[in-house]
């Protein structure tokens, strides 16, 4: 079973010349309502946005601003109440669960706050998990390049319990990149890390964008983390209140303050 359109050769957005111009992910007038009647809450209240290929975007916002909801919908984990989302040319809102699963498997990479590695698998097996699920053979060259970039070659046969948090999150980054997805969504990737490890992980993401042409969308409430991105979005009460090119950590911090 395949989803309808888009590139199916598994290559990155940068490889087919869509860098910068074409939107890898785009949303139009997204609305998401939780609950019904009096108790209803509008987590997203008309969000329209494009994420161009090969760029690193950070989404910030106070708790309850809708930033996580936005990411979940963009990644095909949740469905909007109204509006449309397209990812790598595929319209998500028309896909059923099976097609959405396949889309996530083949074209989306995820990095979670809590690493979410499988404790029973080694680092290498965890990295290759998306390919194993898809039943595909790994591209050895790409795998080696990733490992070297991430710098965990000596930990490949260790299990997550034998690794530090930073190492685990780097493994998670490799897992997100191994299938060369159209876009990587990172949900508070540094939330559980100390500043040194945070820096390492953010450098990695930056590197993936600059050297591999990877499209990355990151949700964070850490201004320092946001400063690694090319573009900063701020959400408040379900709306985009700020959308600019890269900001310094101070600027991001101030923006957050004003939004909160």
């Amino acid at each position, binding site marked *: 079973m395949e989803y309808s359109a888009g590139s199916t050769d598994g290559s990155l957005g940068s490889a087919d010349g869509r860098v910068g111009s074409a939107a890898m992910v785009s949303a139009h007038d997204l609305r998401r309502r939780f609950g019904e009647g009096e108790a209803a809450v509008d987590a997203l209240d008309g969000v329209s946005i494009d994420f161009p290929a090969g760029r690193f975007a950070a989404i910030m916002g106070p708790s309850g601003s809708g930033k996580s909801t936005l990411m979940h919908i963009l990644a095909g984990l949740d469905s909007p109440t109204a509006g449309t989302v397209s990812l790598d040319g595929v319209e998500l809102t028309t896909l059923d669960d099976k097609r959405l699963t396949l889309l996530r498997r083949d074209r989306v990479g995820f990095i979670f706050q809590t690493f*979410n590695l499988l*404790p029973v698998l080694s680092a290498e097996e965890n990295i290759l998990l998306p390919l194993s699920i898809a039943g595909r053979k790994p591209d050895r060259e790409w795998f080696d390049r990733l490992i070297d970039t991430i710098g965990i070659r000596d930990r490949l046969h260790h299990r997550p319990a034998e690794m530090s948090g930073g190492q685990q999150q780097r493994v998670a980054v490799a897992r997100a990149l191994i299938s060369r997805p159209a876009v990587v969504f990172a949900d508070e990737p540094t939330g559980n890390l100390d500043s040194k490890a945070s820096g390492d992980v953010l450098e990695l993401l930056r590197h993936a964008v600059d050297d591999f042409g990877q499209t990355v969308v990151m949700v964070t409430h850490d201004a320092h983390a946001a400063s690694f991105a090319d573009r900063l979005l701020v959400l408040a009460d379900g709306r985009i209140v700020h959308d600019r090119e890269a900001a310094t950590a101070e600027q991001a911090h101030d923006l957050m303050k004003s939004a909160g």
Partner: protein
Amino acid sequence: MLALVLRGFMQRKLRVALTGIAIALGVALMAGTYILTDTINNSFAGIFKTANAGHDVVVTPAQRLGSRVRSQVSPITEAMLARVRAVPGVTQAAGGIFSVGTFLDVHGKRLTTGGAPAFVASEVPKRFESFAPLAGRFPANADEVAIDQATAERAGLKLGGQLQIAASAPAKRYLIVGIVKFAGSQSFGGAGAAILILAEAQRVVGEQGQFDQLDVAASPGVTAAQLRDRIRVVLPRTVEVRTGAQQAAKQSSDLESNLSFIRTFLLIFAYVSLFVGAFIIFNTFSITVAQRTREFGLLRTLGASRQQILREVIFEGVLLGVGGSLLGLLGGIALAPALDQLFKAFGADLPDSGTVLQTRTIVVSLLVGTIVTLLAGLTPALRATRVPPIAAMREGVEIPPPPPPTLARLVIRFVLGLAVLLAFATLLGGGLTPVGLAVALGIRVAFFYGGLRVRARGRRYRVVPALARALGVLVSWRGITGRLARENAMRQPGRTMVTAAALMVGLALVTFVAVLADGTKASIDRAVSRSFAGDLIVENSQAGNEQGIPALVAPALRQVPGVASATPIAFTKARLHGTSSNATVTAVDPSTFGQVYRIEWKQGSPATLLSLGSNGMIVTKGYAESHHLKVGQTVYVLTPAERNIPLTVRAIANDNARLLGNFTIPLPLARSAFGQRDDALDFVSYAPGASNAQVQPAVNRLLDARFPQAKSRTAAQFKADQANQINTLLALIYVLLALSVIVSLFGIVNTLILSIYERTRELGMMRAIGTSRRQLRQMIRYESIITALIGGILGLAIGLLGAVIAAQALSSSGFVLSIPVGTLLILLLVAALAGVIAAQAPARRAAKLDLLQALAGE
């Protein structure tokens, strides 16, 4: 606290339900067993009460050797009846016949089958008659019969129709002149009855001039007890004299003890199911305690004492135990008729009017169910008390291991365990016997020692990862789902082990029984091949029912062209002077027996058979050794005819075919001194040159015409029939053991659901990165199959080991070990299938997980 526990239960509805069911199933079988057996006993008690109404005094054959041999001549004679009639205070006395026979339709088809016998009864004077005509009348001459309503309905017999009756005399046809009903509202318990006039009944059952029973009525002013005492003194000790009420009570208690094996048999399976249920409770409580570490830590932080925590968990156990037991009791009420149907399906038709729910059933069911639950939950509850308060603050706090037990604790634990075992042994055996005590002590020591060793080595569950790894290969071709299933099964070896152990118990028993049954078949095969040198075996087509064939069959068989010899064999019993248990006795025709049967002589030779004389006997080796009998020695035995006779040991022999009883005596002696009327079987051998194709049909024609209750079989047919009987019993045992397997399924379901709950976040992540629902379901299913197969393989291994040991112990008596490889492979398949079934609900649950909630870790 009740509120807290109840609220906790509501939050874990499914788990509580599954665990409750695990206990309820075992309790249901136990309660059902009591209800069924009480109902049967009660029905019979009603029958006997009605049957003895109107009888002040009853005279029956004495039974010092226990219940009567069915084909035994009654010692009650016409002369005794005359003496009773002469006793002052007797207004009326009559003799009656009530013996087992076979009913057939005009085409020779048996009308009564299964466990309930058919009785040939004589008409007795009105005041003693238990039967009343519904239609027609009682028989007036030797060619008429009245039959009971149930048999008439079952066989479609009507007034004016015909019925064949076969007992000790050749089969004869009778005109049906009456349909009768057993007096009172009770049915006659599935048994059939045909009423003939007295002289004809005596002729049919081979008791001319004799009676099975004397019925006596007292004159006004004479009590039953007084009359009984007067009659007692005029009759010999070969008969018993009882009042009608005593007789009814005696019959009821005899029957109860005869049927007690059914109760014990079923209770064994109930206890197996409860034992398996205990594993599940232990596992569920352990997991629950582990998951609630935080909750317990919080309670400790808020100032709850260890005792309070213990009390809460134990209280949960009590509630669960009582709830599960109540559910089981209700289930038992529903199950009792089903069990009855099961026995009917396997050929034992027992009466069951009304449902008898005794207080004992309620008390025992609730107590046993609750105690098992509590015992199983005790260890996890103690574990909960060791949760440190810090667990409330931090995740992943380990519960500290228990301190090494002090000597006092070890002693207490040992004694407690022993007490539990003894309680079970007592419940099961109906009383505390030295053997039970010894066995319980042995088991306790073994477990205790094993437990200490296991703890000392600290590698209790090593076998699980090893097996899981090996089994993982089976599913590894399915890629990552197979690989993850394998890893997940190995993740908590203790939990997997206990879950698998529940299934292991059931499968070990099935394996044990299957292997022994196969060995029994093989042993019979070998024994028959080795010992039987004849061509045909003739016996009652329902030989299992203790029914024999008339003594007239053997002489008739000798007249069939092509038959060289027909040697009759009869079974009876005796009691060696100075002993308290019966010896089995086989009576043979010494002149012909040696030609058709090979005896393994220890002392003596085939010539000894011919020189047995009038009171010589062959003793089997085992009996001779245990009773110190030597060749040439003369001993006194009590016969079923209540006579003490001398018997001289002439030879000692072995008999792996078990045809020979403890004693083998000449048939004429059995007829004269044991009251033996019928034979059990005849061995036929053909004349040289005669072929089976010619002779067997001729033999069958004779049997069909004159002795339709008998059936001829070649050695091969005999072996096949024996194998069939074993298979029937095996099927019954399988059905009952299936319950314990079902209980263990609940355990697998429970463990899987709990594991899924623990791994919610992992499952969410897997779904997020593109694992399909199908793949998740597959993963859970494989994990379940691996767990089930661990249980299956261990069960097979243990069952096989037990069977091999048992076979070893039995090998001296000719037991041949035979391993039914096909059956064992099927058992493994069943285990895997059990895994698939158990995974259904948990897999669906895992696949349905709400992705976002799962990722949020809730």
